[in-house]
């Protein structure tokens, strides 16, 4: 228990810092690109790889897991060592963690543009990468806990609790949501179907936000804000309370992403209530952060780092206030599927995560390089540019979301829908332009930072191993252990009751899992049939091209929607959808009943529209999919896919996989034939045929005939 000399590992911090900056720029660049996709569809949609549908997932993944992810680890590795007064338990693990994570990112950057995706938002990566993520994540956690065990500071500062929470919950979320059945090396089907899949997905989706973008960053805030301001956090007690409050209930929220969907009402309400309760613990963090600076606002005016942090915390406050509001049915009815959601997440992303990361970088880089920041003035410029960027981004998007929603809902006196969907889209383009400008500004700011940090690094030298000293932990006081003894009697119940509790819970699950696997795939609507092999292939192309990023397949029970798209969606319709394709944004119209009723279009229409959307519907911002005409459909996978689907409970007859391809060819020929009539000489073996087949199938299960039977289910 003598005074020990040891060294903090700054190299790993630097590496993650570099990665953060690099991927940050990449992610924003892609973001800007997809934004431009919407403004100048013909120029920027370079098919197939740079089509919106393929790049948008890349943008979200790059920003969330590459930029923010590396930012988290950068912050962790610096603060964890210092809060625990020890070096990371194992440099090797640290390095594996770093390179592993970067590899995963690269893999994502390659697979997503290639259209290799599960189409589950923020979880698009295919199963081999999912496994890699799990492994790396475990290594990261292992390293962290090992470090905690050999710490020299007994008290675990509140930030560390947030780190731990992040590790545990993200692990659980990732695993539960990634239950999928591999079909080929790079193709899998989600274990769950339709409504269930949607529920799991958004339970994950929401908590990914909660535990990847919020808790870790709260932890970072609790370390870097006091450090930067050099004053203790406003109320440490509050920070502790709001952590435990958060952690006891946060993981519940989620269903609110599915309001008015085919999810049972009570489950929706559940989501609402809990999303709403969350405002309290969330604001605990914000209030604590801002009040930490009380009486130091003059310093904020001088210190650019504090400026970044303050804007970040404010943005957090706004986002966490808006979130629960958006989960209220009345507001959600307006906001959902529109750009309002986009604005909301970007206030969080650009404001809270982005600004906090920038602040931390500016604070941290000079320190580990033993120098001063190259130019405070430049950082200041960055701050203002970035702040403007956020405004230019958010305001047009809120506006766009609001107007589009209201346009969707307007009727003429004669009871007709006032605007066609296309009109709403063309109306939005100027807003999309403004949004792109905002994004460009924000990116410019980031580039300024890159230069600034580059010069800073140049003028300093990395202190790879920063010396520190602290005494080892002293032995436990015997006095305390003594007290254990005369209190053991009344302490006994707790562990006992807890044990029972856990046992009961585990029991409950074990008992329920089988029921779930059986029950979950029983169709509730007789007329709903499995997809034909061709439709199934077409659906997989639909997934590959990320159509769900612009087209929902979920008609909500509003007059404005049923008028436009037809009968609202029923839970029973999706029982064979692995994965579900409800989507979360309507840049294009809903496709749930694309093949049914008055929405139904001719094969030729679909063919031409996919070939050149603008030619068919002027003003459309949909990318061209002409390459589908050239690509030959790969039927070698049909057999595997049919088998997989059967395993998942889809009732394909025994041995059907053997005749599947025959059926496929027949159906393809019919469609091709109908196209030939309209003198479109396309071979039947092309992907576009499969896509048309799928689109024409959408929503056809429920004809007028059996609607009655459906509705009373």
């Amino acid at each position, binding site marked *: 228990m003598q005074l020990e000399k040891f060294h903090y590992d700054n190299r790993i911090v630097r590496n993650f810092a570099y990665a953060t900056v690099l991927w940050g720029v990449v992610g924003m660049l892609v973001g800007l690109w997809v934004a431009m996709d919407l403004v100048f569809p013909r120029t920027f949609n370079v098919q197939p790889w740079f089509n919106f549908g393929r790049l948008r997932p890349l943008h979200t993944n790059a920003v969330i897991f590459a930029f923010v992810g590396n930012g988290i680890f950068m912050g962790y590795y610096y603060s964890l060592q210092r809060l625990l007064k020890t070096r990371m338990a194992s440099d090797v693990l640290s390095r594996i963690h770093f390179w592993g994570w970067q590899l995963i990112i690269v893999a994502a950057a390659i697979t997503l543009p290639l259209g290799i995706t599960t189409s589950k938002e923020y979880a698009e990566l295919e199963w081999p990468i999912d496994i890699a993520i799990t492994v790396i994540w475990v290594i990261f956690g292992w390293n962290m806990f090992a470090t905690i065990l050999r710490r020299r500071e007994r008290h675990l500062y509140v930030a560390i609790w947030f780190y731990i929470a992040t590790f545990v919950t993200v692990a659980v979320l990732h695993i539960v949501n990634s239950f999928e059945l591999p079909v080929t090396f790079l193709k899998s089907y989600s274990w769950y179907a339709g409504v269930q899949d949607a529920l799991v997905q958004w339970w994950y989706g929401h908590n990914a936000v909660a535990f990847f973008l919020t808790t870790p960053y709260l932890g970072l805030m609790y370390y870097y804000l006091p450090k930067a301001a050099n004053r203790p956090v406003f109320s440490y007690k509050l920070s502790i309370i709001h952590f435990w409050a958060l952690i006891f209930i946060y993981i519940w929220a989620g269903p609110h992403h599915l309001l008015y969907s085919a999810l049972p009402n009570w489950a929706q309400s559940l989501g609402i209530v809990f999303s709403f309760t969350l405002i309290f613990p969330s604001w605990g963090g914000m209030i604590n952060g801002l009040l930490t600076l009380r009486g130091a606002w003059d310093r904020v005016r001088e210190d650019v780092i504090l400026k970044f942090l303050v804007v970040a915390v404010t943005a957090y406050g706004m986002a966490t206030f808006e979130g629960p509001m958006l989960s209220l049915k009345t507001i959600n009815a307006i906001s959902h599927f529109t750009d309002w959601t986009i604005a909301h997440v970007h206030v969080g992303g650009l404001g809270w995560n982005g600004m906090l990361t920038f602040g931390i970088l500016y604070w941290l880089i000079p320190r580990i390089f033993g120098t001063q920041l190259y130019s405070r003035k430049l950082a200041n410029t960055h701050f203002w540019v970035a702040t403007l960027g956020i405004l230019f981004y958010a305001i047009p998007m809120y506006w766009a979301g609001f107007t589009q929603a209201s346009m969707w809902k307007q009727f003429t006196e004669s009871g007709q829908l006032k605007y066609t969907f296309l009109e709403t889209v063309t109306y939005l383009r100027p807003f999309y332009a403004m949004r792109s400008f905002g994004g460009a500004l924000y990116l410019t700011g980031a580039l300024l930072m890159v230069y600034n940090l580059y010069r800073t690094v140049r003028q300093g030298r990395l202190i790879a191993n920063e010396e520190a000293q602290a005494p080892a932990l*002293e032995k436990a006081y015997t006095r305390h252990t003594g007290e254990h003894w005369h209190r053991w009697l009344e302490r006994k119940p707790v562990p006992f009751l807890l044990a029972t*509790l856990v046992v009961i819970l585990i029991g409950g699950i074990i008992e329920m899992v089988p029921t779930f696997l059986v029950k979950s795939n029983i169709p509730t609507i007789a007329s709903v049939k499995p997809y034909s092999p061709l439709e199934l292939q077409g659906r997989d192309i639909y997934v590959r091209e990320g159509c769900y990023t612009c087209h929902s397949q979920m008609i909500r029970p509003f007059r404005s929607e049923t008028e436009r798209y037809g009968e609202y969606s029923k839970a029973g319709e999706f029982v064979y959808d692995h994965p579900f394709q409800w989507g979360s944004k309507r840049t294009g119209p809903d496709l749930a009943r694309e093949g049914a009723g008055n929405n139904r279009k001719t094969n030729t229409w679909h063919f031409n529209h996919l070939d050149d959307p603008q030619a068919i519907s002027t003003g459309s911002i949909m990318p061209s999919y002409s390459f589908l005409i050239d690509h030959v459909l790969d039927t070698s996978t049909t057999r595997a896919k049919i088998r997989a689907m059967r395993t998942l409970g889809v009732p394909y007859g025994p041995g059907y996989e053997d005749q599947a391809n025959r059926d496929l060819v027949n159906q393809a020929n019919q469609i091709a034939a109908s196209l030939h009539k309209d003198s479109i000489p396309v071979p039947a073996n092309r992907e576009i045929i499969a896509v048309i087949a799928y689109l024409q199938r959408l929503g056809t299960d429920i004809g007028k005939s059996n609607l009655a039977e459906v509705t009373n289910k």
Partner: protein
Amino acid sequence: MALPKTIPVTAAGRPLRTDPAPASVKTQCFHCGTSCDHSIGADGRYFCCDGCRFVYQLLQENGLCNYYDLTQTPGIRVMGRFASEKFAYLDHPEIQQQLIRFTDGRQTQVSFYLPQMHCASCIWLLENLRSLQPGILHSTTHFQRKELFVVFDPGQTTLRKVVELLAFVGYEPYISLDNAGARRERKVNRRQLIRIGVAGFCFSNIMMLSFPEYFSSGSMDLPYLRHLFSYLNLALALPVFFYSAAGFFESAWKGLRQRWLNIDAPIALAILVTFTRSVYEILSGAGPGYLDSMSGIVLFMLAGRWFQDKTYDSFSFDRDYKAYFPLGVTVITSAGEQVATINSLAKGDQVLVRSREMVPADGILQSPEARVDYSFVSGENTPVIRRRGELIYAGANLLSGAVTLEVVRPVSQSYITQLWNQADPRGDRKNTEKSFIHPWSRYFTLVLLGIALLAALYWWVADPTQILPAVTSSLIVACPCSLLLSATFTYGNMLRQFGRGHLYLKNASVIESLSRVNTIVFDKTGTLTHATQADISFEGRPLEPGEARAIAALAAQSVHPMSRLLRDWLLAQHGTGNYSVSDFTEYPGHGTEARIDGRFIRLGSRAFVTGGDSGPQGSGTGQVLVSLDGALRGAFRVGNRYRDGVPEMAAGLLAGGYRLHVLSGDHDAEQDRLRKMFGPQTILRFNQSPHDKRAYIERLRDDDPSAVVLMLGDGLNDAGALLCSDAGIAVSEHVSQFTPASDAILDSDSLTAVDRFLAYARSGKRVVTQSFVLSILYNLVGLSFAVRAALSPLVAAILMPVSSVSIVLFVTAATSLAARRRNVPRRDDAHTTL
């Protein structure tokens, strides 16, 4: 590094001529921030005294100057030299045993109470002690408890060395027999935390699992989910019922055994009923039960208690005389000097008392002469002289050099400790008046049972199957939690409001006492008047600036409180100058002399300055004479200074219809000024001994049973009075330093807000009553459902949190508002951080 055993009063190596500084400039001591001149400097920084300079140099040598960057002038003014033997008693094994928490030959763990701890720098320095003294392995602070936990290697250093180091850097640990600071227990507190945690966890999840039932209005599409949910709820409710709620059952049971229906009884009943009925419903599949309401009740209750039990960790409200005496004393035996514990002192022992030490027991002076003051005992800090054979009382503070005494009474029976030993007349009464909601709760329970009975009767006639539902649900819904919450949160928040005004209450029940006060007794010295500041006037031909500064320069050399007062006053009057100081000598208890720029100046008692015979008439009057080159120049009169705003406060209290009394330990010289401030009807008493004060209070209460007496006093001399008053408030200039046993500790800067505090205390009662009415209303609503046996779990689940939360919000808002209206002072600082 080796500590200088004592800081030499004339430090070697100090330049006789210090660098010039304009007289106007006010310089702050770089270490402790007291204003000072430029006579003491190092590295271009200036210090008020050598003490501060030494500490600075020590830190600087060890690269700990970060201390000065974290906070401006964080240091504590080092009070001059401490006698080398002062901490000798820490070498005494028996004493060590009492202090040391744990030791195996290799490491020793001990924790100290450091009242001086006040800022980030303190924490930083104290946690870096190891770099100041080899052998100290580890040190951790607990700021709010002002506690320092040290681990050191007994092989390399000793307890005494550690304490000496601490004392040297200005953090003299407060060590005493009842080791108030260090030995506070916090286990209970932990248990409560766990209970809240468990309840909170289970509650939030139970609520979660109950909602589906409610939202699907009982008709959930999938029945098996519903069963799963209710069984999970049951599982989650177990810890709440058996563990978190245990406290209520215990106390209710205790109450019942004493035939006394306390507030916990109805709660326990409600919880029990709710639980059993829910279990029955779930197992029989009849319904989802009321588990969410139950766990909610428990959680809110626990939270309420937690909130109310706010305690000020760094204060100790119940110190007895032991706290004031040194742990160890030096006894002279045939074998020579020995350290003995104070308790072991027996009649006839010869004790050695050194300068600035406290006389441990009443004793006969053996040495020719001793100069002591009874500042501790009587609040009077003017020195008195005792000669051989005279009796010196315990608690006296020795000013002159070391003397020996023969003990006549052991500590426990000494004159001063009698104050505590007389049985406290009130005895338990203080504890019984916990809170006036008890009678209420009694009625409440009775009424509730009555209603339940009526409902039962009705249904017995109408539809017997409904009896059970009706009765149980009325017990469930009418749980008095909102009643209890209203009280707990009201007082909890008031405690905090008082705290922000720097009035720190022992517990919530003190608010009750304060609200009933109608008679207020003030101690004068140190309470109404400043303990450290004084009104100084010069008698004789006015001093020229030159002379004044010269005298200041002399005074600056001495650490005697009187000299410091003089110096500060002179500096304030005439600004600083630079003088060469030579042949400085201090005669403890008499005065100081030195040659300042060639002029020989003497400063001190009449006897010392004029050379005439000394004696009580010479001292006692707070006179300091000064002579220039042997010629008497004049006298400084050092008189009491009253705190600002005392007159206003007095007026306010009189207007408020309080009966006021002022007791003073010293002579009636102040009578006229007091009269002016406190008006004719106030009763003034002078020359009151500590016992007189106590007796006075007792008489007040005996003569008029309706009198509820509030006593405000500082120091040991008021301890008895504070003890036997209905509410005793100890006034202190450093709230974290020792204060006598009391119900509350008041920072002297808030003394003049007493009238407002009392007004506020009274407003509390009103708030509670109002919120009671509110909660009664809620209960009526609930009951209206219950008696009709129509209480759906949903209603209960909504009503319970709504009522609780709204009541909590109401009382918190109301009390905060009241505080603002009564403008209770609000000062935010480390003490008030929650």
